[in-house]
């Protein structure tokens, strides 16, 4: 596979990790290290002034010299809200990568394509490295690319559902047309789902729920890393196309005759 380069930065691992839903920052950090991931996402929320902080600030637990930290815009319903979050993240921590997540419908958490495209245009112009979370729509993927997205992030299935890649045919079209990396995000519940994404030609996957909520998140992070690596090696090894007809693996001559 071609080296994975986003906005000039090369990533050795094709497994990206979300930091939500972990039982503690300790477990999150150990899972992240076990995964070998070099890109993690974080979210922005209001500080709760009436409660003592439950844990250290998450940024103190992430080493920015080793991983790219990408704030997401979760909670935003409009382009304006997402842009506000991205600018706050830049002001707070100097982060200029942003994962656009614009999900007005709280039931399915599906991304709003119109608002996502608007926010991509504006934030790309402001110099952000924009990674838009999107439905697996090949036309939208091209529009986002033209608007300045540094990569596109089509969903496999809705966020947190663990249902795997239900958008397979559309992901294949997106991959075949894309000139930016394709990162399959959302819904991947098993290591085999991540492997499938890489085998389809995706450049990387982003996993959160499947690792964070596993009985053993650190072991699951290892499992995902192994699956992604195995799929990458398989792609590099040059798999042969599927065929409708059988093709004998053993010689068809020299049979013992009665």
């Amino acid at each position, binding site marked *: 596979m071609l080296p994975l380069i986003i906005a000039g930065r090369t990533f050795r691992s094709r497994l990206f990790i979300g930091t939500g839903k972990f039982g503690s920052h300790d477990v999150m950090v150990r899972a992240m290290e076990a995964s070998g991931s070099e890109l993690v996402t974080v979210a*922005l929320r*209001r*500080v709760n*002034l009436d409660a003592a902080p439950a844990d250290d*600030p998450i940024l103190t637990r992430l080493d920015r010299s080793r991983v790219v930290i990408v704030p997401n815009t*979760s909670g935003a319903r409009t382009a304006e809200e997402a842009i506000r979050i991205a600018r706050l993240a830049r002001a*707070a*921590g100097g982060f200029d990568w942003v994962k656009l997540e614009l999900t007005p419908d709280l039931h399915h958490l599906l991304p709003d394509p119109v608002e996502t495209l608007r926010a991509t245009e504006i934030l790309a112009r402001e110099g952000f490295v924009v990674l838009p979370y999107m439905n697996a729509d090949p036309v939208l993927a091209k529009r986002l690319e033209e608007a300045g997205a540094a990569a596109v992030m089509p969903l496999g299935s809705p966020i947190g559902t663990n249902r795997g890649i239900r958008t397979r045919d559309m992901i294949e079209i997106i991959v075949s047309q894309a000139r930016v990396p394709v990162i399959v995000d959302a819904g991947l519940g098993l290591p085999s789902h991540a492997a499938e994404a890489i085998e389809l030609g995706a450049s990387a996957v982003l996993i959160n729920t499947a690792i964070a909520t596993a009985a053993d998140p650190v072991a699951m992070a290892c499992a995902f890393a192994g699956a992604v690596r195995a799929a990458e090696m398989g792609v590099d090894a040059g798999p042969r196309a599927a065929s409708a007809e059988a093709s004998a693996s053993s010689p068809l001559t020299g049979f013992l005759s009665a």
Partner: protein
Amino acid sequence: MNVTINGQERDVGSPSSLAALLEGLGVEARNVAVECDGAIVRCDQLAATPVRPGARIEIIHFVGGG
């Protein structure tokens, strides 16, 4: 004076600046983003930014997310 912080009205005394207001709330400035009346206030400007009565202030921090 009263200001609205993260959607809740609070009496914050009379802080000399946004930096002093954060200190009074026990919030470490280097870990948060601050928006005052809709404008982002960069970390290095907090000490130079006054607080007016009735200001609408948002104090945001990073948390785990996917």
